């Protein structure tokens, strides 16, 4: 009999799609860590500008079993290809039965089984930046996506400036400027808490990619930052839990 070291079932493949799509914005080779509590992933892009920290608790799965802690490395592009073959309504079981292979089984219209060779997992752990946040806003993901896209028309960066009663998103380039103001009555702004007025600039490329990667299932994004400090986005996603995304600020030389 095959001994299952780890097995996790979900009602659909959508959760893994989102996880893969979020991670693929930063890296291709990903090391997941499975414990009895759930699955986590933490990784930085090669330039160390952005970091993703995911925790997917055991309670979010249809069923979950992990006897002992284990790390497994996957090539996200390969993993995504397999997951994309599945149907939305397929139940999905991901398991590890020996050291080197991830098994993906679906049941739904018919039974399907893939085996994917694991890659070497990274040994080090990635520390989280030590941050305290002076400004927080909660935006609907669709509003956040729209604001960032509005700014992207003229600029590759967005400057976010917070005031007690409003948040301004600003983009500048040689060709012109763009500004979006969100006030408590603006559609999509769900919460605003400003302990101290804050201003910082971030790369739109990174922000838009991560926002678009989760926008099909995510509802809101909590956005936290302080002046000239990294920004943290928190996405709460049904059947996954939370995804944190950190991005270092751009500081003009």
């Amino acid at each position: 009999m095959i001994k299952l070291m780890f097995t996790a079932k979900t009602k659909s493949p959508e959760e893994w799609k989102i996880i893969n799509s979020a991670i693929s914005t930063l890296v291709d080779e990903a090391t997941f860590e499975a414990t009895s509590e759930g699955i986590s992933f933490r990784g930085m892009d090669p330039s160390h500008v952005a970091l993703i920290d995911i925790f997917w608790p055991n309670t979010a799965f249809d069923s979950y079993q992990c006897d002992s802690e284990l790390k497994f490395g996957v090539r996200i592009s390969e993993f995504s290809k397999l997951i994309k073959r599945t149907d939305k309504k397929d139940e999905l079981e991901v398991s590890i039965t020996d050291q080197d292979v991830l098994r993906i089984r679906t049941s739904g219209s018919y039974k399907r089984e893939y085996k994917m060779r694991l890659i070497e997992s990274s040994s080090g752990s990635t520390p989280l930046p030590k941050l305290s946040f002076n400004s927080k806003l909660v935006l609907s993901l669709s509003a956040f996506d729209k604001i960032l896209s509005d700014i992207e028309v003229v600029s590759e960066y967005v400057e976010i400036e917070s005031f007690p009663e409003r948040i301004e998103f600003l983009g500048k380039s040689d060709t012109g400027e763009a500004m979006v103001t969100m006030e408590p009555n603006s559609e999509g702004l769900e919460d605003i808490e400003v302990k101290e007025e804050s201003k910082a600039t971030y790369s739109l490329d990174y922000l838009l990619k991560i926002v678009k990667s989760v926008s099909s299932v995510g509802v809101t994004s909590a956005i936290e930052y302080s002046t000239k400090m990294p920004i943290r986005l928190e996405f709460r996603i049904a059947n996954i839990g939370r995804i944190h995304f950190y991005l270092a600020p751009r500081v003009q030389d």
Partner: protein
Amino acid sequence: MDNRVDTLESISKQVVNCLLCDLAKSRINAVPGNGDIKSKVVFVGEAPGKNEDETGVPFVGSAGKILEKALREAGFDRKEVYITNVVKCRPPNNRIPNEFEIETCTSAHLKVELQVLSPKIVCILGATALKSLLGLGHMTLYRGKIITRPPYRYFVTYHPAATIYNNKLKETFDSDIKRLYSLIKGENKTLNDFA
């Protein structure tokens, strides 16, 4: 750092002595990449031309002069960046390198170069580099865009040689290099600065 310098030097030696394809038969000199190992950007062109073949140094001919001028005007110092080519030997009559030459040369040399340099951005100069590094055609679709393909980010622009007889392309090329400069200079913070 010493280790990386040594590795890069050994890549250069391998390039100089490389006999992996027929281009080795017609070259005068193989042309390894050159520049600053600490560079945050690596420029990747197509292949050496006549002047490069004669000197063994990349981008020293007329295309090199255009690149150097654009770099200077944008704020880069040529000595502070790293410049290389998809293929390290001159193809006869400056023809476009063929698939075998590209595959052989990038697997043996360019991929290792990029691993050692681990740049913040790889600047793709021209259609051959775009096709070789990302498998993409249609320069006009991608020019001026940042393409994230882990583990690297790529910035796509024209090959400076394409701008020699076309002022409009040259203006675009110059402004692309300026944008690249602001991309690199702007993003100087990393999350490690806040650990």
